[in-house]
């Protein structure tokens, strides 16, 4: 069996048996990147020698008989919004061109102590703002299933890297759907954990009450394995929650008998593509055949989620991104009149259009006279959205829905219409506002051979339940086994 395209679990078994070394596995993936990334453009930074050196050190540990971490030599790609000490971290922004963090993010430390090989940094929408990975200052990532289409965003580089078999696992971040949407568009598994499950220390902030780091993999078991490595308390993130981390990689194989799956009537309305709807409904039939109970529920405020998000997230962004002032790090304009002008010119030059738009939107929503009408109003509706979920989870274990209204759209199609772009996140955004975990798994293909994703949401800290429910589906279907031919 080839290294490339194996699941993380299969590859890990072969590493543990000694059939393949981490250097061999890492080299195979680096070769795949060299072969295919010229077309996909998923990676912003690949340090071949550094990756091989990490792999060699892990192989030597294994040869000495030392016990290894749970990722035991597997290559992992990392979204370029996560700080890596000594390796560039740009957030796909001109603002951070050449920035080299002086420390590792908590999740990067976790990857290292789990004996992962960091294979490269992946492209994204600038500062994680976008749904297509077109808002990168450096390159446009392409969907490996159709190079004329977007991989989704903002973690499009990580999703495309896993889909095109350039990494078995990858890290993404999800503020409004930025893991789940690209997972759906690229036909891979992507999971946003509960807010507080994974430390945000060293994650470059966008919307701090919404941001969460999570795994991409080419099957659910791989996502469970990577989440197990990432999750857990960290005192350096004051919103990190100190609650035990289950052994996801083991329990993922245990099906949930009689799981109750909720379907929100508000999710099946006009605007939902017919092929997407029929794939999701076929997915529910798979669950029925496994003994699941399907129940209709209501999420009456879900139609307001996008409006709430585009007040809350830009407000937080306008505050977070105030740190880019051209003083401590980041771009400084060459010409300016005075100190204030230096800030404004540096920011005007360093940020791209969508980042500027969101800073403007947030600054407006928080400014004197508008705070109550926009920001406070949005926070109140955010509470109603959470209350809807709390009510729904009294009668169901998980909620199933499409991950997006349509399969992947074409590059350039929505670039001039930000609002239409925002609406591609209509099924994912509520989970961030409510802080819930969500997973997207491959559940079908359109006639054009584009992947269709199924989303499952759960109550806070029920990642284990989501992973087990998702794995049940995966064991009955083969959508996750299909791989695109990149040409």
């Amino acid at each position, binding site marked *: 069996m080839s290294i490339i395209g194996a699941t993380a679990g299969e590859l890990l078994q072969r590493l543990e048996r000694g059939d393949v070394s981490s250097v061999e596995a890492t080299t195979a993936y680096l070769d795949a990147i060299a072969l295919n990334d010229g077309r996909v453009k998923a990676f912003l930074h690949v340090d071949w020698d550094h990756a091989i050196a990490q792999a060699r050190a892990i192989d030597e540990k294994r040869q000495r008989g030392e016990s290894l971490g749970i990722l035991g030599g597997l290559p992992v790609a990392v979204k370029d919004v996560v700080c890596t000490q000594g390796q560039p971290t740009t957030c796909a922004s001109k603002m951070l061109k050449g920035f080299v963090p002086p420390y590792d993010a908590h999740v990067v430390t976790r990857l290292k102590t789990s004996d992962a090989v960091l294979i490269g940094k992946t492209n994204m929408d600038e500062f994680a703002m976008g749904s297509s990975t077109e808002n990168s200052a450096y390159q446009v990532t392409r969907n490996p299933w159709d190079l004329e289409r977007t991989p989704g965003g903002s973690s499009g580089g990580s999703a495309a890297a896993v889909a095109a078999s350039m990494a078995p696992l990858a890290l993404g971040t999800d503020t409004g759907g930025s893991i789940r949407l690209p997972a759906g568009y690229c036909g891979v598994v992507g999971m946003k954990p509960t807010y507080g499950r994974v430390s945000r220390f060293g994650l470059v902030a966008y919307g701090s009450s919404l941001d969460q780091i999570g795994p991409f993999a080419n099957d659910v078991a791989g996502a469970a394995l990577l989440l197990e490595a990432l999750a857990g308390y960290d005192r350096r993130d004051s*919103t990190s929650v100190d609650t035990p981390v289950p052994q996801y990689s083991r329990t993922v194989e245990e099906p949930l008998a009689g799981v109750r799956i909720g379907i929100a009537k508000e999710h099946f309305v006009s605007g939902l593509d017919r092929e997407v709807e029929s794939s999701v409904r076929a997915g529910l039939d798979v669950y029925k055949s496994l003994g699941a109970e399907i129940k209709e529920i209501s999420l009456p405020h879900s139609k307001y989620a996008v409006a709430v998000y585009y007040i809350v997230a830009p407000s937080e962004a306008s505050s977070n991104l105030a740190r880019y002032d051209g003083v401590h790090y980041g771009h400084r304009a060459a010409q300016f009149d005075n100190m204030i002008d230096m800030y404004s010119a540096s920011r005007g030059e360093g940020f791209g259009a969508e980042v500027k738009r969101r800073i403007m939107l947030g*600054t407006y929503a928080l400014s004197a006279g508008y705070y109550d009408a926009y920001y406070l109003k*949005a926070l109140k509706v955010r509470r109603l959205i959470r209350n809807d979920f709390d009510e729904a989870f009294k009668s169901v274990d998980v909620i199933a829905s499409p991950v997006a209204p349509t399969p992947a759209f074409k590059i350039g199609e929505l670039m001039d219409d930000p609002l239409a772009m925002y609406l591609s996140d209509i099924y994912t955004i509520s989970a961030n506002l409510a802080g819930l975990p969500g997973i997207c798994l491959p559940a079908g293909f359109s006639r054009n051979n584009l992947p269709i994703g199924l989303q499952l949401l759960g109550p806070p800290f029920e990642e284990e339940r989501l992973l087990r429910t998702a794995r049940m589906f995966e064991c009955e279907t083969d959508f996750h086994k299909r791989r695109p031919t990149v040409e």
Partner: protein
Amino acid sequence: MPAQLTRADVLKVARLARLKLTDAELDDCTVKLGKILDYVASLNEINTDEVEPMVHAVELSNVFRDDAVQPSLPQTAALANAPKSDGRFFLVPQILEGA
């Protein structure tokens, strides 16, 4: 919600946000932000009089830790990404005019 967004509003917000925008960017922002604000006005359909705002998904309060000294970044590492530095400080243009 407030009245139609004007170009003057956008210019004021850009100043608050410390963003130097070109004329074309100001025009573009006026149109596109206006559309987004129209969209979010749908929130006014909902009565929220009795609703507590939800600031955070996990509503923690008063997270304390021991007041213990931890290692901090060495000076060279902290200055390594500075656009302008003399090796000891971050350098910025003169702040006080006429000084």
